[in-house]
C-alpha cells in the first residue's frame, strides 16, 4: 500500500472499472521497523474511493461472517473494483509475539509455538498435524464447487467448439503458447534505401501485420504510442476502455511500472502482450522486466528513442547505461536491430518465443536500409551476431562490430577502409544473449580469435563490450551523458562518424601485433 506501483495500478483499475478485481489489504499496522505510525498515516479508504473503488472494511480478520459479507459485496458490485480493508493481528494467538514486528520475519521459537497451540486448543507437541476431517471439509467446499464450475464451463466450451471450431482452436493455441499457421504471412521485405527508415517506423509496419495474423497480440504504451509507433492502426483493432474491453490498443497512461506489471499479468493469462516506451524510461519498469525474466514470460518490451539519436531533447532523454543494465538481467533477450530488415527478423524471432521476455530496442531516427544483395541476409539476427560485410578474400585484419544505428556507420567505415586497402569485417550484433547461445565454432567463425584488432561501436555505455573486443580492442561508445543538440553535431562530438571509426581502426592496426603471420603489414601500406 505504500509502494508507488500499487497507486499506479489502482488508479488504472479504477479508471477501467475492473469489477472482477478484489484487493485485500491486511491492515495489521506493523511494518518491519515497527508500528506503521513511523511512516504511514494516510487514509487508505479515502484514497481508494478517490480512485473509483468500492471500499469495504472487516474489523476483525477472525470474523468469518463479516469476511463472507465483504466478499459477497465484492461479487455484487459490478461497476468498480473492490478493496477490502481487513484489520488483523500479526501472529494472532501468540501470547508474547502477537502485534509485534518480531513476528514478521523469524520463527516464533519452540516455546512460543507451544503456547500458541495451547491457545488454539491444539495438541501442543504435535507438528505438521492435519486433523481428520480437514481435507474432507475442503473437498466438499472448494473441491466440489470448483469441479462443478469447471465441468459446466467445459460443457459450454464443448458447444462453443462445435459451433466455432476455428475460434476454439485459437483459444487452445493461445493457452498453449502456440502460433497459428500463417502467423508471419505478409511480412515486408524492405528494399535497400540509403535514407531508410527509423527502427520505430519499420517496427510499426511489422507489428501491424503480425497483429492482424495473431489475434491475441495486444498491447499499448505508457502514453507514448504516437512516438513509439506501436499503435495498431487497422480498422478492427479498437481501443481498450471500460466500455470496450475487447479493444486491442491499451492506454496505460503515464505509468511505466504498472504497465510492466500489467504486461506480466496479461502474459500469465496467455495473451501475447507488448508495451512500449522510451528506452530512458525502462528504468521505471525495471522491476517488472526482471519479474518477466524470472517467471519466463514472453512479454515484449518495445523501447524506442534508443540513444543520443534523440538529439535536441538532451541528456535527460538520452539513454546511456540502459542497454548494459537490460543486458544484465538473466533470461531477458535484448535485440537492437540495425535496419528495417533486421527489425522484421527481430519480430520473427520474438513471435516464436514461448518462455522468454524480449526488449526490442529501436531508433527514433532513420537508419539506412542495407542492400542485402551486397551484404549478408538479415536472418543472421537469429544467431545474435553475424558477418554482415567482409574482406573480399574472407580474411579480414580488423573487425568492426556494432548494434543498431551504429551498424551502418561501421559499413561506411568498412567501405572507406577498403578504399585504403584495409581488410575489415563488419559484424552486426543485434543480441549479445543470442550470440552467446551459439556453439563455439560459430562464435569463432564470426569473431576469429586470431584477429585481435577489434572495434565495437555503440551509442551507449562501454560496459561489457570488452568481452567481445578483448584487451587489444577499442570501444567507441558513450563515456559520459549526452548533450542537447541536433543529431549530426552530437555524432561528431561523441565520435560516431565514419572518419573517427577509420581513424581508430588505423591507429589500432598500427599498434596491434601483426596477425595471420604478418600478412597485414605487407598488404596494407600502413607505414608511418
Amino acid at each position, binding site marked *: 500500500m505504500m509502494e508507488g506501483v500499487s497507486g499506479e495500478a489502482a488508479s488504472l483499475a479504477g479508471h477501467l472499472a475492473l469489477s472482477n478485481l478484489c484487493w*485485500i489489504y491486511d491492515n495489521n499496522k506493523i511494518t518491519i521497523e515497527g508500528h506503521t505510525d513511523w511512516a504511514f498515516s494516510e487514509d487508505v479508504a479515502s484514497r481508494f474511493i478517490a480512485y473509483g473503488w468500492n471500499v469495504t472494511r472487516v474489523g476483525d480478520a477472525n470474523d468469518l461472517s463479516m469476511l463472507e459479507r465483504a*466478499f459477497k459485496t465484492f461479487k455484487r458490485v459490478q461497476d468498480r473494483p473492490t478493496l477490502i480493508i481487513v484489520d488483523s493481528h500479526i501472529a494472532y494467538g501468540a501470547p508474547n509475539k502477537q502485534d509485534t514486528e518480531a513476528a514478521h520475519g*523469524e520463527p516464533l521459537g519452540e516455546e512460543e*509455538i507451544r503456547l500458541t497451540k495451547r491457545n488454539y486448543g*491444539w495438541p501442543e507437541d*504435535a507438528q505438521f498435524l492435519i486433523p481428520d476431517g480437514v481435507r474432507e471439509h475442503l473437498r466438499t467446499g472448494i*473441491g466440489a464447487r*470448483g469441479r462443478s464450475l469447471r465441468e459446466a464451463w467445459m460443457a459450454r466450451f464443448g458447444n462453443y467448439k462445435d459451433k466455432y471450431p476455428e475460434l476454439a482452436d485459437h483459444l487452445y493455441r493461445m493457452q498453449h503458447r502456440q502460433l497459428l499457421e500463417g502467423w508471419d504471412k505478409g511480412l515486408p521485405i524492405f528494399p535497400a534505401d540509403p535514407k531508410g527508415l527509423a527502427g520505430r517506423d519499420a517496427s510499426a509496419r511489422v507489428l501491424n501485420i503480425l497483429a492482424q495474423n495473431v489475434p491475441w497480440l495486444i498491447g499499448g504504451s505508457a502514453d507514448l504510442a504516437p512516438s513509439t509507433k506501436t499503435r495498431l492502426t487497422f480498422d478492427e483493432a479498437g481501443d481498450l476502455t471500460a466500455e470496450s474491453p475487447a479493444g486491442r490498443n491499451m492506454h496505460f497512461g503515464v505509468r511505466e511500472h504498472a504497465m510492466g506489471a500489467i504486461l506480466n499479468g496479461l502474459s500469465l493469462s496467455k495473451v501475447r502482450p507488448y508495451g512500449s516506451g522510451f528506452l530512458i524510461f525502462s528504468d521505471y519498469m525495471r522491476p517488472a522486466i526482471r519479474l518477466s525474466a524470472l*517467471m519466463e514470460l514472453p512479454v515484449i518490451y518495445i523501447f524506442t528513442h534508443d540513444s543520443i539519436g534523440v538529439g535536441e531533447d538532451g541528456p535527460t532523454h538520452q539513454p546511456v547505461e540502459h542497454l548494459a543494465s537490460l543486458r544484465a538481467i538473466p533470461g531477458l533477450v535484448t535485440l537492437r536491430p540495425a535496419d528495417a530488415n533486421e527489425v522484421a527478423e527481430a519480430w520473427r524471432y520474438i513471435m516464436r518465443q514461448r518462455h522468454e521476455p524480449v526488449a526490442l530496442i529501436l531508433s527514433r531516427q532513420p537508419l539506412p536500409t542495407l542492400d542485402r544483395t551486397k551484404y549478408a541476409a538479415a536472418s543472421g539476427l537469429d544467431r545474435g551476431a553475424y558477418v554482415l560485410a567482409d574482406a573480399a578474400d574472407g580474411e579480414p585484419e580488423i573487425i568492426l562490430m556494432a548494434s543498431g544505428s551504429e551498424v551502418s556507420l561501421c559499413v561506411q567505415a568498412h567501405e572507406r577502409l577498403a578504399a585504403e586497402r584495409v581488410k575489415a569485417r563488419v559484424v552486426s550484433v543485434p543480441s549479445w544473449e543470442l550470440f552467446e547461445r551459439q556453439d563455439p565454432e560459430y562464435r569463432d567463425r564470426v569473431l576469429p580469435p586470431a584477429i585481435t584488432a577489434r572495434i565495437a561501436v555503440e551509442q551507449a555505455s562501454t560496459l561489457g563490450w570488452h568481452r567481445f573486443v578483448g584487451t587489444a580492442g577499442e570501444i567507441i561508445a558513450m563515456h559520459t551523458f549526452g548533450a542537447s543538440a541536433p543529431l549530426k553535431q552530437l555524432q561528431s562530438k561523441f565520435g560516431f562518424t565514419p572518419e573517427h571509426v577509420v581513424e581508430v581502426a588505423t591507429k589500432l592496426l598500427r599498434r596491434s601485433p601483426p596477425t595471420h603471420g604478418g600478412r597485414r603489414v605487407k598488404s596494407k601500406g600502413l607505414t608511418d
Partner: protein
Amino acid sequence: MSEQGGLDQLCINTIRTLSMDAVQKAKSGHPGTAMAMAPVVYTIWQRFLRFDPEDPIWPNRDRFVLSIGHASMLLYSMLHLTGVRAVNPQYERLGELSVTLDDIKKFRQLDGKCPGHPEYRWTSGVETLCAVRGRVHDGGGVG
C-alpha cells in the same frame, strides 16, 4: 482465544500451525502474517474461489494472487490441503499433488517445491511470482 470449534476453525488452525511449524523447521521465514490471514485465505478459497484443485490451469478460473509473498506458507498450506494437482511445463495435468506434506517440511530448502516466496513455474497452483514489494497484477484478484 478462538475456540469457536467447528470444521472451519479446525481448517484455519491447521493452516496456522502448518505455517508456524514449517518456519520453525526451516529456522527462517515469516510466520506472523500467515497466522493472521489464515481465516481470510480460508474463506476466499472455501467459499468463493472459482478454482478446481483437480485442474489448476482451467482457463476460466479465478486467480488468487498472494501479494504478501512472505506469507507463502498460506499458499502452500492451501495447495496441499485442497489437493491441488501438479502440472508440467507442457501444460499437462499430472496425477500427483503439487505440494505434498513432505514438500512443506522442506520449506525454504534447496530444490524444494516450497521456496521462501512463491515462485511461478516452480510450484503448480502458484499463479504468479509475488515476492516483491508493491507488486500487484491487474490480471489477478479473486472474482
